[in-house]
């Protein structure tokens, strides 16, 4: 049976005649939910979000309601909301679509969320690579202000809120919430150590702060519209709502697709939705949740038990695309960036590319990550230059194992997971390359292999 998209966030995006201005948004029922929301008690809205079980769409999948519940409301300090629009996980391109094509949906989501947590100021931290997106958002905020949807005493409710767009200048670490906060304060974006600097307690300017992803804030709008319990019926228990999947790489129809969580398997996504692989090619591997997610190899079998106690036995293409299933097979749903690789892909070269990215983007604050990401890059670079040593494969794994869990932020895990999973799952390919190169080096007259 062909799988059907469930478009909640992307309901209007790409529809004929749908534009990103306020008039068009209002014609499609825009800001009606905000109107409804400001007549309710803020804590009721928080309760609905909690009931919905909606999980963060930025990468970690942390329940949004829980994040809001942790906000320190007794400190007497102002509460801030930050919309994390620093979408930079390689393979992810959903937030850009929302910002460019339906900015008012995001603004409405932000306004409802601000009201729910009683924030008076919201910042949209948008990555420097989205200059057009920043311009679109600023225009959208001005439009909303002109209709009293934003600013003082919105819709006569007595509640006032301001939204500001803050532009970054290109740094992956600014997607990490405490790095983002440092950047927003005008400092070098070194992530903060937790505890004590949990944003919900000591966030922006040491005030309680909620940091939510663009897509998550859009979901809040739909949660309030439908009611938490109704929203939770979409998807599977613990994986409520819809999920935007961004598919790139070796498929016929790369693009963004929205499905109820767990509604389709990875195989259906690749073959039914994305038109399959290029002619004559077979599937080799998939990175299911942005470049940090552990890679999945074609031909693998995954067995085990899910959270609800049921057991599973899946091949790669049988895996349901939701948070818990992808975690159960040892990877993650992450940011929803699905990168498909066919049999033409050289896995050593692929890892060399990914390692170069992490070595460049490590902020350099913690030694294991700064040095480890650099060494992993050096090793895979020399493998891709034909200068591997036989022990390099084990050395790679060894370096990776010493990063994760030893750093201030999750970048340590993010940079070691690709190496750990590539080397484990494509060990023969790595070993063969290393052996061949090490053998050639000893006979090619160049003497010792240079260590670059």
């Amino acid at each position, binding site marked *: 049976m062909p799988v059907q998209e469930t478009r909640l966030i992307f309901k209007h995006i790409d529809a004929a005649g749908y534009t990103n201005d306020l008039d068009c948004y209002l014609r499609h029922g825009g800001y009606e939910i905000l109107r409804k929301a400001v007549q309710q008690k803020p804590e009721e809205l928080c309760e609905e979000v909690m009931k919905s079980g909606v999980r963060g769409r930025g990468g970690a999948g942390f329940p949004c309601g829980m994040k809001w519940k942790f906000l320190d409301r007794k400190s007497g300090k102002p509460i801030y909301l930050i919309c994390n629009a620093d979408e930079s996980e390689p*393979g992810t391109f959903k937030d850009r679509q929302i910002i460019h094509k339906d900015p008012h949906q995001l603004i409405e989501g932000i306004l409802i969320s601000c009201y729910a947590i009683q924030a008076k100021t919201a910042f949209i931290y948008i990555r420097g690579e989205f200059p057009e997106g920043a311009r679109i958002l600023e225009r959208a905020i001005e439009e909303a202000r002109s209709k009293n949807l934003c600013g003082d005493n919105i819709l006569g409710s007595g509640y006032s809120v301001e939204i500001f767009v803050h532009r970054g200048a290109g740094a992956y670490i600014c997607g990490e919430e405490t790095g983002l906060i440092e950047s927003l*304060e*005008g400092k070098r974006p070194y992530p903060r150590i937790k505890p004590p600097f949990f944003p919900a307690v000591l966030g922006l300017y040491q005030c309680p702060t909620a940091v939510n992803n663009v897509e998550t804030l859009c979901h809040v709008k739909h949660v309030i519209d439908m009611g938490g319990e109704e929203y939770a019926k979409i998807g599977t228990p613990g994986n409520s709502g819809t999920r935007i999947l*961004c598919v790139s790489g070796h498929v016929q129809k790369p693009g963004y697709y929205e499905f109820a969580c767990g509604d389709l398997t990875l195989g259906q996504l690749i073959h039914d939705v994305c038109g399959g692989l290029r002619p004559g090619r077979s599937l080799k591997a998939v990175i299911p949740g942005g470049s940090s997610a552990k890679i999945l190899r074609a031909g693998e079998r995954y067995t085990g038990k899910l959270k609800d106690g049921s057991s599973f036995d899946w091949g790669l293409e049988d895996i349901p695309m939701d948070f818990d299933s992808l975690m159960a097979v040892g990877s993650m749903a992450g940011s929803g960036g699905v*990168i498909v690789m066919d049999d033409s892909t050289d896995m050593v*070269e*692929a890892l060399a*590319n990914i390692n170069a990215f992490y070595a460049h983007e490590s902020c350099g604050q913690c030694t294991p990550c700064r040095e480890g990401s650099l060494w992993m890059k050096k090793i895979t670079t020399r493998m891709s230059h034909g200068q591997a040593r036989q022990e390099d494969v084990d050395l790679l794994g060894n370096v990776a194992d010493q990063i994760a869990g030893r750093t201030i932020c999750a970048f340590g895990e993010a940079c070691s997971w690709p190496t750990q999973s590539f080397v484990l799952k494509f060990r023969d390919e790595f070993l063969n390359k290393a052996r061949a190169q090490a053998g050639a080096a000893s006979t090619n007259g160049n003497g010792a292999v240079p260590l670059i």
Partner: protein
Amino acid sequence: MLSPAEQAALDAELPHYPARRALCIEALKIVQHHRGWISDEALRDVALALGMTPHEVDSVATFYNLLYRRPVGRHVLHLCDSVSCWVMGCDGICDHFRNRLGISFGETTPDGRFTLLPIPCLGDCDHAPSLMAGNRIHGNLTPEKLDRLLDELD
């Protein structure tokens, strides 16, 4: 000293924040926009305007991919070299830059027209390989498409 135009652009953003230094990135972008790149002198000007030390400003200026601490060409082309673009052949586009303009990543053409820089994922992976020139993203790059783009940029 910031020029009047630079100061005016900065002042427009100031009311949004409780602290001046929050404008550090924006101020650096403003001077970069007016002066092409961020020289040591520009750095000192920003520091003075925001009440920061030049070292603090430099710790920000040296961190980000889109802030240039060295002179760049009239057009800075940011070619995505992250994994999705790599899978779809950004290496070939890199080769084409080398063949046609004689530049690799980090280099500027002798006539000062183009600088080529790598950039992590632009979020245009469904149109990989992709590059950013000014405010525009150009996806589904082929050598022919790149040629046309380069011809359009003076």
